[in-house]
């Protein structure tokens, strides 16, 4: 339909128009469709999980014509108008959806609104809940309460796929009438020290402090409440046949996607083969080749994701690092969260560190107080990227950790090759 207007994939205004003409647009399009709806919510990992699921399902249906398979909303277009846009883009002139699956990643605040429009989606995956953009989303407990209220009304047609290791997410399954399944990660050898930015160490049921047998990262782990008896779900899916991306956080994303694939009768063989050819979503461990040097971008937008990125690249023996901190609306205007990142654990880890972005000096200040010695701060992003690349030796990798808008900018600089 929107092809008439020659609109790109990322635009949200077709949806905006559709919703202003018919406020029930989403409901009406989906009413007569057999498309299976998969919603993905959570602070971190939505885009990667959506891409994992899409890769597996498309691989599984590869004998069918393309338009009979899977579509998803554009990454980041995860408010109501983004969902509506993707419906405009993929429906026929008579508003018919000829697809098997629709995958929608949903913004934390939008989940209740979308559940109002899509009463009983087939699947809802909830990945995690971390502190993120407190100026925009409010506090973790506020979001948890909104989700709880929205999910309470779901019926058994919906399958809820929840992270068992996140107590506040696991709690959503307690009072649900839906079919509830849990995923987690394999706990072998995963005990780690407590991270500072830990948000849900208290029982979501009774408020007592939770006891952790082990902590995987932030407040994710094997937990139990000794007061009310609320405990980590026993039956938890933890074993994908293959993990295409590094980092503990991607084990969660992969296990969630694989559990969903299994529920849709995708064979183990197809799952493994599709994951082996998986290509990361843009900016999410995406690899770019710049002449004879490799660049890998790790979107790092809140304390939990920043900590995980640092840990992951440290395990990859990273030498060269470019950190980019912006404070625009998609990043959150408040940059105080950088003080909740455990930089202290990495103060002598990296050889060549360049710091940049709209709030470069705030991040430089953070590194100074974490006793980093060898970093330089440059206000201009293009210049900083150039310096960081120059210092990266041939056949080495430059690891870039940007916030959201910074990721888009740095990608443009690198792929547009405007600085080289």
């Amino acid at each position, binding site marked *: 339909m929107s092809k008439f207007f020659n609109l790109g994939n990322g635009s949200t205004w077709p949806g905006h128009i559709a919703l202003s003409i018919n406020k029930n647009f989403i409901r009406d399009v989906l009413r007569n469709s057999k498309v299976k709806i998969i919603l993905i919510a959570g602070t971190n990992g939505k885009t990667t999980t959506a891409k994992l699921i899409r890769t597996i399902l498309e691989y599984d249906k590869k004998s069918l014509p393309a338009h009979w398979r899977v579509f998803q909303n554009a990454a980041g277009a995860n408010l109501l108008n983004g969902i509506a846009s993707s419906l405009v883009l993929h429906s026929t002139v008579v508003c018919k959806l000829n697809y098997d699956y629709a995958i929608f990643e949903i913004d934390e605040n939008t989940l209740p609104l979308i559940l109002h429009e899509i009463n009983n989606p087939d699947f809802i995956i909830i990945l995690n809940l971390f502190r993120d953009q407190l100026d925009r989303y409010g*506090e973790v407990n506020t979001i948890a309460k909104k989700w709880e209220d929205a999910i309470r009304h779901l019926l058994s047609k919906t399958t809820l796929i929840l992270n068992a290791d996140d107590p506040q997410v696991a709690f959503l399954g307690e009072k649900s009438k839906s079919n509830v399944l849990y995923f987690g990660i394999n706990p072998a050898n995963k005990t780690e020290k407590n991270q500072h930015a830990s948000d849900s160490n208290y029982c979501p049921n009774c408020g007592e402090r939770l006891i952790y047998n082990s902590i995987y990262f932030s407040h994710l782990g094997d937990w139990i409440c000794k007061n009310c008896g609320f405990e980590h779900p026993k039956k938890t899916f933890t074993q994908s046949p293959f993990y295409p991306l590094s980092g503990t956080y991607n084990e969660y994303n992969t296990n969630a996607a694989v559990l969903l694939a299994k529920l849709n009768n995708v064979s183990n063989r197809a799952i493994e083969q599709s994951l082996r050819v998986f290509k990361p979503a843009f900016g999410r461990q995406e690899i770019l080749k710049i002449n004879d040097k490799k660049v890998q971008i790790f979107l790092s937008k809140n304390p939990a994701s920043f900590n995980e990125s640092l840990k992951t690249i440290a395990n990859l023996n990273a030498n060269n690092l470019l950190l980019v901190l912006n404070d625009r609306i998609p990043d959150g205007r*408040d940059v105080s969260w950088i*003080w*909740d990142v455990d930089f202290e654990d990495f103060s002598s880890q990296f050889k060549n560190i360049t710091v940049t972005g709209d709030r470069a000096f*705030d991040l*430089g*200040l953070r590194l100074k107080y974490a006793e980093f010695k060898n970093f330089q701060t440059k206000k201009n992003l293009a210049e900083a990227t150039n310096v960081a690349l120059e210092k990266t030796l041939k056949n080495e990798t430059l690891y870039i950790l940007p916030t959201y808008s910074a990721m888009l900018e740095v990608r443009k600089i690198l792929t547009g090759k405007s600085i080289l």
Partner: protein
Amino acid sequence: MIHNTKYKLTIGWLYPELMSTYGDRGNIIVLQKRCEWRGIGVEVLKLDLHFNLNQLAQCDLLFMGGAQDKQQKIVSEDLMKKRNALQNRIEDGIPGLYICGAYQLLGRYYKEAERTIIPGLNIFDLYTGNPGLNVSRLIGNVAIEFQGVNSYSPSRCNHSYTLVGFENHGGRTYLGKNVKPLGKILKGFGNNGEDGTEGAIYKNSFGTYFHGPILPKNPEFADLLIKVALEKKYGSPIDLSPLDNSIEMQARKTIANRLNVEL
């Protein structure tokens, strides 16, 4: 690093587990490092739920951050039982920094949108009202003119100094006669978005809505807290050795330029 064993400070961090949401631990890191870099011995005592009153007595400087509502309720119940001990220390002039939720808690009361009144610790002469979820929170970068603590402490900070930070609060705080504002709003909202004041000073205690966190980008204010704590403990005027504040200055400038205020 030179270790000057002559001076030592014990910093009491009230409820680090529950009251630490907006990067407020940055304040502790800054106090600790600025002492260490000068060779001042420093110990941070974490005063978590059910802490012992003897620990409070050992502290030379207190800090408490902001929190989520649920956590704040748990803290407020615990702190009510320790109210008198904390009041005695504050009246006695122990320097302290209290951010957002902690600042509100030290006041007389907090009135919720539904008109429920939650009693505060009643140590600072101020109260806070929350106009409810339908009224906007006060969010954004903020700058104030800090007027120093001339008559409130044995130390002197005679010149005015611009404090920069970020505020994010639903509650509106109104000051009584027995406290002075921390400063005058240059840009932003401050205590209530109406009367041009931000924060409160009582004796050597400072309450504020500044996140950011406040101390990294306002190193002179951090040093003032350290200086007052040392002078109080050792009973004589102390001059702190200067530190390189060049990154601090540039980070301050970023905000000052955006808000179009002078530093």
